């Protein structure tokens, strides 16, 4: 049976949680963890980077990893509040 389609905020939370669990994570591993199509993943990553929730680190061997910013951590802490607010007010 198909699972319930994830809401935008839930997808963001899943991406941020995957990064938090690993502290730093490679783009391909994050793509698998996010369970999104590559195109959608690209869109979400772009959004999260522009909102400064995550940052892309490139080391001197050109290895790319994503890590969480303070703002991203704040979002994860407040996610339950936001989710409750939306559910309780039927927004």
């Amino acid at each position, binding site marked *: 049976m198909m699972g319930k389609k994830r809401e935008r905020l839930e997808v963001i939370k899943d991406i941020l949680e995957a990064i938090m669990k690993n502290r730093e994570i490679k783009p391909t591993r994050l793509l698998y963890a996010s369970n999104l199509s590559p195109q959608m993943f690209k869109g979400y990553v772009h959004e999260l980077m522009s909102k400064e929730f995550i940052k892309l680190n490139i080391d001197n061997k050109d290895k790319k990893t994503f890590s969480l910013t303070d703002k991203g951590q704040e979002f994860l802490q407040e996610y339950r509040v936001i989710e*409750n607010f939306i559910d*309780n007010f039927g*927004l």
Partner: protein
Amino acid sequence: MSFYELIAQNKELFRIFYSLIIGLICFIIVLKTHRLFKLSDHQGIRYFRNAFFFYGLAFASRYFLLFISSPFLKIAFEFFLIMGGFSLIYSLLWKRLDGKKINISSLLNFRILIFYLFAIIIAYLDFIWQIYYFMFFSQIIVFIVASIISYDNFNKNKNKNNFLKFYFISMILSLMAWILNFIACYFFNWRLRWVGGVYILNVIVFVLFLYGVIKVIKKS
């Protein structure tokens, strides 16, 4: 001295206090919800916040109207009040109308421009005829629809979330406040006892909204 004599003798003071207290409640709700919106970019939270932003501006205009008699302020007061109602109902409807589309600006987009247009027309017509009926009818319709939607949200919720029932009751009280406003104006020519009742009910409604916002944020 009876309670009503006390109110009658201090009418202006009560009006000032009434405008200030509702303005303050709106300010707190805007602050609390703005933070949640900034983190989430959620359109429902955004329009909910905007509703209280407009209500806050309405009661600020009302406060100044107590000291300055200005046609512009009168129109502005009605305009902001009507926009508050429109934004509140839009916070419940946006998903059904906009889908997942995110508007860059919640104060300048096509649908909101239509609301502005309606609000200006209603406020202006009331001003020309020196009545409030267009505003009353528009807001009574808005809160009938808002009550139906919030009841539907409660009914659809599998866990029978009690807060959704609370929100539905708040909407019903808001509807009653607008109906009472209309009755006080049309049948009793703003007689003090009726105006007092309207003020009390309005304050209760805004306090309930504030209580709801604080409770949900704290509970989490």
